[in-house]
Protein backbone atom coordinates (compact mmCIF):
# COMPACT_ATOMS: atom_id res chain seq x y z
CA UNK A 1 0.00 0.00 0.00
CA UNK A 2 1.40 3.34 -1.07
CA UNK A 3 1.34 6.04 1.58
CA UNK A 4 1.63 9.76 0.92
CA UNK A 5 1.79 12.20 3.80
CA UNK A 6 1.70 15.91 2.91
CA UNK A 7 2.22 18.61 5.50
CA UNK A 8 0.95 16.55 8.44
CA UNK A 9 0.68 18.77 11.48
CA UNK A 10 -0.30 17.81 15.00
CA UNK A 11 -0.26 19.76 18.24
CA UNK A 12 -1.35 18.94 21.75
CA UNK A 13 -3.06 21.28 24.13
CA UNK A 14 -3.26 20.74 27.84
CA UNK A 15 -4.96 23.63 29.61
CA UNK A 16 -3.30 26.87 28.54
CA UNK A 17 -0.16 25.04 27.47
CA UNK A 18 0.08 23.96 23.87
CA UNK A 19 2.78 22.01 22.11
CA UNK A 20 3.41 21.63 18.40
CA UNK A 21 4.65 18.06 17.85
CA UNK A 22 4.52 17.59 14.09
CA UNK A 23 5.28 20.77 12.20
CA UNK A 24 4.49 19.50 8.71
CA UNK A 25 5.61 16.01 7.77
CA UNK A 26 6.08 15.31 4.06
CA UNK A 27 6.77 11.68 3.44
CA UNK A 28 6.02 9.26 0.66
CA UNK A 29 6.25 5.53 1.21
CA UNK A 30 6.09 3.27 -1.84
CA UNK A 31 4.01 0.10 -1.70
CA UNK A 32 6.19 -2.70 -0.40
CA UNK A 33 8.80 -0.34 0.96
CA UNK A 34 10.49 -0.69 4.36
CA UNK A 35 10.75 2.83 5.69
CA UNK A 36 12.54 3.51 8.95
CA UNK A 37 12.01 6.65 10.98
CA UNK A 38 14.64 7.91 13.37
CA UNK A 39 14.66 11.14 15.35
CA UNK A 40 15.19 12.58 18.80
CA UNK A 41 12.95 11.48 21.64
CA UNK A 42 9.72 13.44 21.81
CA UNK A 43 9.92 14.66 18.22
CA UNK A 44 6.62 13.02 17.27
CA UNK A 45 7.49 9.64 15.75
CA UNK A 46 4.81 7.80 17.74
CA UNK A 47 2.39 10.60 17.01
CA UNK A 48 2.99 10.19 13.29
CA UNK A 49 2.46 6.43 13.47
CA UNK A 50 -0.77 6.88 15.42
CA UNK A 51 -2.05 9.22 12.74
CA UNK A 52 -1.06 6.71 10.05
CA UNK A 53 -2.89 3.99 12.00
CA UNK A 54 -5.99 6.18 12.13
CA UNK A 55 -5.96 6.35 15.93
CA UNK A 56 -5.49 10.11 16.00
CA UNK A 57 -6.54 12.77 13.52
CA UNK A 58 -3.99 15.23 12.18
CA UNK A 59 -4.61 18.95 12.69
CA UNK A 60 -3.70 19.61 9.09
CA UNK A 61 -2.21 18.13 5.96
CA UNK A 62 -3.30 15.15 3.96
CA UNK A 63 -2.66 11.45 4.27
CA UNK A 64 -3.43 9.15 1.37
CA UNK A 65 -3.32 5.38 1.18
CA UNK A 66 -3.14 4.19 -2.42
CA UNK A 67 -4.28 7.67 -3.34
CA UNK A 68 -7.35 7.67 -1.11
CA UNK A 69 -7.90 9.35 2.24
CA UNK A 70 -8.81 6.89 4.96
CA UNK A 71 -10.75 7.80 8.05
CA UNK A 72 -10.53 5.83 11.26
CA UNK A 73 -8.52 2.78 12.03
CA UNK A 74 -8.62 -0.69 10.57
CA UNK A 75 -6.90 -4.06 10.47
CA UNK A 76 -5.20 -3.37 7.14
CA UNK A 77 -2.87 -0.97 9.00
CA UNK A 78 -1.67 -2.66 12.16
CA UNK A 79 0.26 -0.80 14.82
CA UNK A 80 2.77 -2.42 17.13
CA UNK A 81 2.59 -0.12 20.12
CA UNK A 82 5.71 1.09 21.85
CA UNK A 83 4.01 0.02 25.09
CA UNK A 84 3.05 -3.39 23.67
CA UNK A 85 -0.59 -2.98 24.65
CA UNK A 86 -1.10 -6.69 25.25
CA UNK A 87 -4.31 -7.70 26.99
CA UNK A 88 -3.51 -8.88 30.52
CA UNK A 89 -6.69 -10.94 30.83
CA UNK A 90 -5.67 -13.19 27.95
CA UNK A 91 -2.78 -15.60 27.65
CA UNK A 92 -0.13 -15.17 24.99
CA UNK A 93 -1.86 -17.32 22.38
CA UNK A 94 -5.25 -15.61 22.83
CA UNK A 95 -3.51 -12.26 22.50
CA UNK A 96 -1.94 -13.29 19.22
CA UNK A 97 -5.27 -14.63 17.96
CA UNK A 98 -7.31 -11.61 19.05
CA UNK A 99 -7.64 -9.93 15.67
CA UNK A 100 -8.23 -13.26 13.94
CA UNK A 101 -11.09 -13.96 16.33
CA UNK A 102 -12.54 -10.51 15.66
CA UNK A 103 -12.40 -11.36 11.96
CA UNK A 104 -14.31 -14.57 12.64
CA UNK A 105 -11.63 -17.10 11.72
CA UNK A 106 -12.35 -20.62 12.97
CA UNK A 107 -10.42 -21.89 15.96
CA UNK A 108 -8.24 -24.39 14.10
CA UNK A 109 -7.11 -21.81 11.59
CA UNK A 110 -6.34 -19.31 14.35
CA UNK A 111 -4.33 -21.88 16.25
CA UNK A 112 -2.28 -22.68 13.18
CA UNK A 113 -1.47 -19.03 12.53
CA UNK A 114 -0.65 -18.19 16.13
CA UNK A 115 1.54 -21.29 16.43
CA UNK A 116 3.51 -20.21 13.37
CA UNK A 117 4.24 -16.70 14.62
CA UNK A 118 4.85 -17.73 18.21
CA UNK A 119 7.36 -20.24 16.93
CA UNK A 120 9.00 -17.53 14.86
CA UNK A 121 9.23 -15.31 17.94
CA UNK A 122 10.55 -18.29 19.93
CA UNK A 123 7.62 -18.13 22.31
CA UNK A 124 6.01 -21.51 21.66
CA UNK A 125 6.76 -22.64 25.18
CA UNK A 126 4.99 -19.61 26.58
CA UNK A 127 1.71 -19.73 24.68
CA UNK A 128 -0.27 -20.26 27.90
CA UNK A 129 1.54 -17.59 29.91
CA UNK A 130 -0.16 -14.39 30.98
CA UNK A 131 1.48 -11.07 30.30
CA UNK A 132 2.55 -10.46 33.89
CA UNK A 133 4.62 -13.63 33.63
CA UNK A 134 6.61 -12.28 30.67
CA UNK A 135 9.67 -10.07 30.47
CA UNK A 136 9.47 -6.78 28.59
CA UNK A 137 11.29 -8.24 25.60
CA UNK A 138 8.98 -11.24 25.52
CA UNK A 139 5.97 -8.93 25.58
CA UNK A 140 7.37 -7.03 22.63
CA UNK A 141 7.78 -10.26 20.74
CA UNK A 142 4.18 -11.24 21.51
CA UNK A 143 3.09 -7.84 20.24
CA UNK A 144 5.04 -8.40 17.02
CA UNK A 145 3.54 -11.89 16.62
CA UNK A 146 0.06 -10.44 17.18
CA UNK A 147 0.63 -7.85 14.46
CA UNK A 148 2.11 -10.32 11.99
CA UNK A 149 -0.75 -12.75 12.57
CA UNK A 150 -3.11 -10.07 11.25
CA UNK A 151 -1.27 -10.13 7.92
CA UNK A 152 -1.88 -6.40 7.36
CA UNK A 153 -1.00 -4.44 4.21
CA UNK A 154 0.82 -1.90 6.34
CA UNK A 155 2.80 -2.61 9.49
CA UNK A 156 3.44 0.34 11.77
CA UNK A 157 6.09 -0.63 14.29
CA UNK A 158 7.01 1.68 17.15
CA UNK A 159 10.42 0.73 18.52
CA UNK A 160 9.49 -2.93 18.74
CA UNK A 161 13.06 -4.07 19.43
CA UNK A 162 13.87 -1.54 22.13
CA UNK A 163 13.82 -4.04 25.00
CA UNK A 164 15.55 -6.97 23.28
CA UNK A 165 18.96 -8.39 23.98
CA UNK A 166 21.43 -8.35 21.10
CA UNK A 167 20.99 -12.02 20.20
CA UNK A 168 17.21 -11.87 19.99
CA UNK A 169 17.35 -8.56 18.22
CA UNK A 170 19.71 -9.89 15.55
CA UNK A 171 17.47 -12.90 15.09
CA UNK A 172 14.37 -10.75 14.70
CA UNK A 173 16.17 -8.35 12.36
CA UNK A 174 16.58 -11.37 10.09
CA UNK A 175 13.02 -12.62 10.53
CA UNK A 176 11.44 -9.24 9.88
CA UNK A 177 13.46 -8.82 6.68
CA UNK A 178 12.40 -12.29 5.53
CA UNK A 179 8.72 -11.69 6.23
CA UNK A 180 8.91 -8.36 4.51
CA UNK A 181 10.67 -9.81 1.45
CA UNK A 182 8.19 -12.68 1.24
CA UNK A 183 4.96 -10.76 1.76
CA UNK A 184 5.70 -7.38 0.16
CA UNK A 185 4.19 -5.56 3.12
CA UNK A 186 4.66 -1.86 3.48
CA UNK A 187 6.45 -1.24 6.76
CA UNK A 188 7.04 1.94 8.73
CA UNK A 189 9.45 1.17 11.51
CA UNK A 190 10.41 3.66 14.20
CA UNK A 191 13.69 3.16 16.01
CA UNK A 192 16.32 5.01 17.99
CA UNK A 193 18.96 2.61 16.84
CA UNK A 194 20.92 3.77 13.80
CA UNK A 195 22.27 0.28 13.14
CA UNK A 196 18.75 -1.17 13.18
CA UNK A 197 17.59 1.47 10.72
CA UNK A 198 20.50 0.76 8.40
CA UNK A 199 19.85 -2.98 8.48
CA UNK A 200 16.11 -2.76 7.89
CA UNK A 201 15.31 0.33 5.88
CA UNK A 202 15.06 0.70 2.14
CA UNK A 203 15.06 4.34 3.11
CA UNK A 204 15.49 6.08 6.45
CA UNK A 205 13.55 9.24 7.25
CA UNK A 206 15.25 11.43 9.82
CA UNK A 207 12.86 13.60 11.83
CA UNK A 208 14.11 16.87 13.29
CA UNK A 209 13.21 18.11 16.74
CA UNK A 210 9.83 19.65 17.59
CA UNK A 211 7.92 20.95 15.74
CA UNK A 212 9.32 18.25 13.55
CA UNK A 213 9.73 18.00 9.81
CA UNK A 214 11.52 15.37 7.79
CA UNK A 215 15.08 16.59 7.97
CA UNK A 216 16.57 14.10 5.54
CA UNK A 217 15.74 10.88 3.78
CA UNK A 218 18.67 8.48 3.47
CA UNK A 219 18.54 6.02 0.58
CA UNK A 220 19.76 2.54 1.44
CA UNK A 221 20.24 0.22 -1.51
CA UNK A 222 22.58 -2.23 0.20
CA UNK A 223 22.03 -5.86 -0.80
CA UNK A 224 19.95 -8.12 1.48
CA UNK A 225 19.86 -10.03 3.67
CA UNK A 226 21.65 -7.59 5.90
CA UNK A 227 22.71 -8.22 9.44
CA UNK A 228 23.76 -6.05 12.32
CA UNK A 229 27.52 -5.60 12.29
CA UNK A 230 27.93 -5.84 8.51
CA UNK A 231 30.87 -3.58 7.67
CA UNK A 232 29.05 -2.45 4.53
CA UNK A 233 26.48 -0.60 6.67
CA UNK A 234 29.10 1.99 7.62
CA UNK A 235 28.38 4.70 5.05
CA UNK A 236 24.58 4.50 5.54
CA UNK A 237 24.97 4.71 9.30
CA UNK A 238 27.29 7.65 8.92
CA UNK A 239 24.77 9.41 6.71
CA UNK A 240 21.94 8.84 9.22
CA UNK A 241 24.06 9.97 12.13
CA UNK A 242 25.11 13.07 10.26
CA UNK A 243 21.48 13.95 9.55
CA UNK A 244 20.53 13.30 13.18
CA UNK A 245 23.41 15.34 14.54
CA UNK A 246 23.16 18.16 12.03
CA UNK A 247 21.07 21.35 12.21
CA UNK A 248 19.54 22.25 15.61
Amino acid at each position, binding site marked *: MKIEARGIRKGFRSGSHSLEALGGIDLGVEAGEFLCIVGPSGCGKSTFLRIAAGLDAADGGSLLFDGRPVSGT*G*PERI*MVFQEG*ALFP*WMDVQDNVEF*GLRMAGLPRAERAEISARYLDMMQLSRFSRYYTYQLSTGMKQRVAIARALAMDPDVLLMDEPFAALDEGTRNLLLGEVQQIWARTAKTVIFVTHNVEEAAVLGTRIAVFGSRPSEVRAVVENGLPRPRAAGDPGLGPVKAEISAALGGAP
Partner: protein
Amino acid sequence: MRYALYRAAFYGGLVALWHVIHASGVLPPGVLPSPYEVAEDLAFGATEGGLFYGIATSMWRLLAGLGIAVGGGVALGVLMARSEAVNQTAGSLVLGLQSIPSIAWVPLAILWYGLTDAGIIFVVAVGAVFAVTINTYTGVRNIDPHHIEAARNMGAGGAQLLFSVLLPAAFPHMITGFKQGWAFAWRGVIGAELLFAFLGLGHLLYAARSLTDVSYVMAIMLVIMAIGLVVDGVVFRRAEDAVMSRWGLRR
Protein backbone atom coordinates in the same frame (compact mmCIF):
# COMPACT_ATOMS: atom_id res chain seq x y z
CA MET B 1 -1.71 -21.60 60.69
CA ARG B 2 -0.60 -19.62 63.72
CA TYR B 3 -3.45 -17.19 63.11
CA ALA B 4 -5.94 -20.05 62.91
CA LEU B 5 -4.86 -20.95 66.43
CA TYR B 6 -5.17 -17.34 67.57
CA ARG B 7 -8.60 -17.20 66.02
CA ALA B 8 -9.76 -20.41 67.74
CA ALA B 9 -8.45 -19.08 71.04
CA PHE B 10 -10.15 -15.71 70.50
CA TYR B 11 -13.57 -17.16 69.81
CA GLY B 12 -13.15 -19.75 72.58
CA GLY B 13 -12.34 -16.93 74.98
CA LEU B 14 -15.31 -14.90 73.79
CA VAL B 15 -17.71 -17.77 74.40
CA ALA B 16 -16.11 -18.43 77.80
CA LEU B 17 -16.52 -14.76 78.76
CA TRP B 18 -20.14 -14.86 77.57
CA HIS B 19 -20.72 -17.93 79.73
CA VAL B 20 -19.14 -16.27 82.78
CA ILE B 21 -21.26 -13.12 82.38
CA HIS B 22 -24.39 -15.20 81.97
CA ALA B 23 -23.58 -17.44 84.95
CA SER B 24 -22.56 -14.55 87.23
CA GLY B 25 -26.08 -13.15 87.17
CA VAL B 26 -24.99 -9.50 86.90
CA LEU B 27 -27.51 -8.99 84.08
CA PRO B 28 -31.27 -9.15 84.73
CA PRO B 29 -32.79 -12.48 83.70
CA GLY B 30 -33.93 -12.76 80.08
CA VAL B 31 -31.35 -10.29 78.71
CA LEU B 32 -28.48 -12.63 77.87
CA PRO B 33 -29.13 -16.34 77.33
CA SER B 34 -26.27 -18.77 77.85
CA PRO B 35 -24.16 -19.88 74.89
CA TYR B 36 -25.59 -23.32 75.45
CA GLU B 37 -29.20 -22.12 74.98
CA VAL B 38 -28.25 -20.33 71.75
CA ALA B 39 -26.51 -23.45 70.47
CA GLU B 40 -29.55 -25.49 71.37
CA ASP B 41 -31.83 -23.13 69.44
CA LEU B 42 -29.47 -23.32 66.47
CA ALA B 43 -29.59 -27.10 66.58
CA PHE B 44 -33.35 -27.04 66.95
CA GLY B 45 -33.81 -24.65 64.05
CA ALA B 46 -31.56 -26.84 61.94
CA THR B 47 -33.24 -30.15 62.76
CA GLU B 48 -36.76 -28.81 62.55
CA GLY B 49 -35.86 -27.30 59.18
CA GLY B 50 -37.29 -23.83 59.68
CA LEU B 51 -33.86 -22.27 59.71
CA PHE B 52 -32.82 -23.86 56.42
CA TYR B 53 -36.10 -22.87 54.83
CA GLY B 54 -35.50 -19.32 56.02
CA ILE B 55 -31.96 -19.31 54.65
CA ALA B 56 -33.10 -20.70 51.30
CA THR B 57 -35.90 -18.13 51.03
CA SER B 58 -33.61 -15.21 51.85
CA MET B 59 -30.95 -16.55 49.50
CA TRP B 60 -33.12 -16.89 46.47
CA ARG B 61 -34.51 -13.41 46.96
CA LEU B 62 -31.00 -12.13 47.34
CA LEU B 63 -29.76 -13.91 44.23
CA ALA B 64 -32.70 -12.72 42.16
CA GLY B 65 -32.23 -9.13 43.33
CA LEU B 66 -28.46 -9.23 42.98
CA GLY B 67 -28.78 -10.76 39.51
CA ILE B 68 -30.97 -7.86 38.43
CA ALA B 69 -28.56 -5.41 40.08
CA VAL B 70 -25.53 -6.90 38.32
CA GLY B 71 -27.21 -6.91 34.91
CA GLY B 72 -28.60 -3.42 35.24
CA GLY B 73 -25.58 -1.98 37.04
CA VAL B 74 -23.07 -3.25 34.49
CA ALA B 75 -25.16 -1.98 31.58
CA LEU B 76 -25.65 1.44 33.17
CA GLY B 77 -22.02 1.68 34.28
CA VAL B 78 -20.71 0.95 30.79
CA LEU B 79 -23.12 3.45 29.25
CA MET B 80 -22.05 6.13 31.72
CA ALA B 81 -18.37 5.45 31.07
CA ARG B 82 -18.68 5.49 27.30
CA SER B 83 -21.14 8.35 26.86
CA GLU B 84 -20.48 11.68 28.51
CA ALA B 85 -24.12 12.67 27.93
CA VAL B 86 -25.35 9.67 29.92
CA ASN B 87 -22.72 10.31 32.58
CA GLN B 88 -23.67 13.96 33.03
CA THR B 89 -27.38 13.15 33.26
CA ALA B 90 -28.00 9.68 34.67
CA GLY B 91 -24.65 9.76 36.50
CA SER B 92 -25.70 12.41 38.99
CA LEU B 93 -29.00 10.63 39.60
CA VAL B 94 -27.09 7.42 40.35
CA LEU B 95 -24.99 9.21 42.96
CA GLY B 96 -28.14 10.61 44.54
CA LEU B 97 -30.00 7.31 44.58
CA GLN B 98 -26.91 5.55 45.96
CA SER B 99 -27.26 7.62 49.13
CA ILE B 100 -30.71 6.19 49.90
CA PRO B 101 -30.41 3.22 52.29
CA SER B 102 -32.12 0.15 50.83
CA ILE B 103 -34.50 -0.02 53.79
CA ALA B 104 -35.88 3.37 52.81
CA TRP B 105 -37.20 1.76 49.62
CA VAL B 106 -39.39 -0.64 51.60
CA PRO B 107 -42.50 1.58 51.92
CA LEU B 108 -42.49 2.25 48.19
CA ALA B 109 -41.93 -1.44 47.47
CA ILE B 110 -44.89 -2.40 49.63
CA LEU B 111 -47.10 0.18 47.94
CA TRP B 112 -46.02 -0.95 44.49
CA TYR B 113 -45.78 -4.69 44.93
CA GLY B 114 -47.68 -5.45 48.13
CA LEU B 115 -46.26 -7.97 50.58
CA THR B 116 -44.74 -10.16 47.88
CA ASP B 117 -41.40 -11.68 46.91
CA ALA B 118 -41.25 -9.18 44.09
CA GLY B 119 -41.32 -6.33 46.61
CA ILE B 120 -38.39 -7.75 48.55
CA ILE B 121 -36.45 -8.50 45.37
CA PHE B 122 -37.04 -4.92 44.29
CA VAL B 123 -35.58 -3.63 47.55
CA VAL B 124 -32.55 -5.90 47.18
CA ALA B 125 -31.96 -4.95 43.55
CA VAL B 126 -32.32 -1.22 44.04
CA GLY B 127 -30.07 -1.37 47.09
CA ALA B 128 -27.28 -3.15 45.21
CA VAL B 129 -27.51 -1.78 41.68
CA PHE B 130 -25.73 1.53 42.20
CA ALA B 131 -22.64 0.01 43.80
CA VAL B 132 -22.32 -2.20 40.72
CA THR B 133 -22.95 0.78 38.44
CA ILE B 134 -20.36 3.03 40.04
CA ASN B 135 -17.64 0.38 40.15
CA THR B 136 -18.29 -0.70 36.56
CA TYR B 137 -18.12 2.95 35.51
CA THR B 138 -14.80 3.38 37.32
CA GLY B 139 -13.46 0.18 35.80
CA VAL B 140 -14.33 1.12 32.24
CA ARG B 141 -13.02 4.66 32.71
CA ASN B 142 -9.69 3.35 33.96
CA ILE B 143 -9.02 1.03 31.04
CA ASP B 144 -5.61 1.66 29.52
CA PRO B 145 -6.51 3.59 26.33
CA HIS B 146 -3.88 1.59 24.43
CA HIS B 147 -5.92 -1.55 25.01
CA ILE B 148 -8.99 0.00 23.41
CA GLU B 149 -6.92 1.46 20.58
CA ALA B 150 -5.16 -1.83 19.89
CA ALA B 151 -8.49 -3.66 19.84
CA ARG B 152 -10.08 -1.15 17.48
CA ASN B 153 -6.98 -1.24 15.32
CA MET B 154 -7.38 -5.02 15.05
CA GLY B 155 -10.95 -4.64 13.90
CA ALA B 156 -12.95 -4.88 17.13
CA GLY B 157 -16.04 -2.68 17.33
CA GLY B 158 -19.44 -2.56 18.97
CA ALA B 159 -20.39 -5.72 20.81
CA GLN B 160 -17.00 -7.33 20.14
CA LEU B 161 -15.23 -4.42 21.76
CA LEU B 162 -17.64 -4.55 24.70
CA PHE B 163 -17.36 -8.25 25.42
CA SER B 164 -13.74 -8.86 24.40
CA VAL B 165 -12.14 -5.74 25.82
CA LEU B 166 -14.25 -3.32 27.85
CA LEU B 167 -15.82 -5.84 30.24
CA PRO B 168 -12.76 -8.03 30.80
CA ALA B 169 -10.52 -4.99 31.19
CA ALA B 170 -12.91 -3.47 33.72
CA PHE B 171 -13.49 -6.75 35.52
CA PRO B 172 -11.17 -6.18 38.48
CA HIS B 173 -13.22 -3.09 39.38
CA MET B 174 -16.48 -4.80 38.56
CA ILE B 175 -15.84 -7.60 40.99
CA THR B 176 -15.37 -5.02 43.74
CA GLY B 177 -18.76 -3.69 42.69
CA PHE B 178 -20.28 -7.16 42.91
CA LYS B 179 -18.82 -7.56 46.38
CA GLN B 180 -20.22 -4.24 47.54
CA GLY B 181 -23.48 -5.05 45.80
CA TRP B 182 -23.67 -8.36 47.62
CA ALA B 183 -23.07 -6.62 50.95
CA PHE B 184 -25.88 -4.13 50.27
CA ALA B 185 -28.12 -6.92 49.02
CA TRP B 186 -27.56 -9.10 52.08
CA ARG B 187 -28.32 -6.25 54.47
CA GLY B 188 -31.22 -5.24 52.26
CA VAL B 189 -32.86 -8.64 52.14
CA ILE B 190 -32.74 -9.15 55.92
CA GLY B 191 -34.00 -5.64 56.56
CA ALA B 192 -36.79 -5.92 54.01
CA GLU B 193 -37.90 -9.28 55.39
CA LEU B 194 -38.07 -7.80 58.89
CA LEU B 195 -40.43 -5.11 57.66
CA PHE B 196 -42.37 -7.19 55.14
CA ALA B 197 -42.72 -9.90 57.85
CA PHE B 198 -43.04 -12.45 55.08
CA LEU B 199 -40.81 -15.56 55.32
CA GLY B 200 -37.01 -15.60 55.20
CA LEU B 201 -34.34 -15.10 57.85
CA GLY B 202 -35.47 -11.54 58.51
CA HIS B 203 -38.96 -12.74 59.24
CA LEU B 204 -37.65 -15.49 61.56
CA LEU B 205 -35.85 -12.75 63.43
CA TYR B 206 -39.08 -10.76 63.63
CA ALA B 207 -41.07 -13.80 64.78
CA ALA B 208 -38.52 -14.71 67.45
CA ARG B 209 -38.64 -11.13 68.69
CA SER B 210 -42.45 -11.32 68.93
CA LEU B 211 -42.07 -14.41 71.12
CA THR B 212 -39.39 -12.60 73.17
CA ASP B 213 -37.16 -15.56 72.42
CA VAL B 214 -33.79 -13.85 72.96
CA SER B 215 -31.72 -16.94 72.38
CA TYR B 216 -33.42 -17.68 69.04
CA VAL B 217 -32.91 -14.07 67.97
CA MET B 218 -29.22 -14.43 68.75
CA ALA B 219 -29.04 -17.79 66.98
CA ILE B 220 -30.46 -16.29 63.80
CA MET B 221 -28.09 -13.32 64.03
CA LEU B 222 -25.20 -15.78 64.24
CA VAL B 223 -26.46 -17.48 61.09
CA ILE B 224 -26.69 -14.13 59.28
CA MET B 225 -23.16 -13.30 60.37
CA ALA B 226 -21.81 -16.71 59.38
CA ILE B 227 -23.29 -16.52 55.89
CA GLY B 228 -21.88 -13.02 55.48
CA LEU B 229 -18.44 -14.22 56.56
CA VAL B 230 -18.46 -17.18 54.21
CA VAL B 231 -19.57 -15.22 51.16
CA ASP B 232 -17.25 -12.27 51.83
CA GLY B 233 -14.24 -14.14 53.12
CA VAL B 234 -14.38 -17.24 50.99
CA VAL B 235 -16.40 -16.69 47.81
CA PHE B 236 -15.41 -13.09 47.06
CA ARG B 237 -11.92 -13.35 48.52
CA ARG B 238 -11.14 -16.30 46.23
CA ALA B 239 -12.74 -14.69 43.19
CA GLU B 240 -10.86 -11.45 43.79
CA ASP B 241 -7.55 -13.22 44.32
CA ALA B 242 -8.04 -15.20 41.12
CA VAL B 243 -8.91 -12.09 39.11
CA MET B 244 -6.15 -9.93 40.58
CA SER B 245 -3.42 -12.45 39.91
CA ARG B 246 -4.74 -13.36 36.46
CA TRP B 247 -4.83 -9.68 35.48
CA GLY B 248 -1.32 -9.28 36.90
CA LEU B 249 -2.45 -6.71 39.46
CA ARG B 250 -1.02 -8.68 42.37
CA ARG B 251 1.67 -11.34 42.43
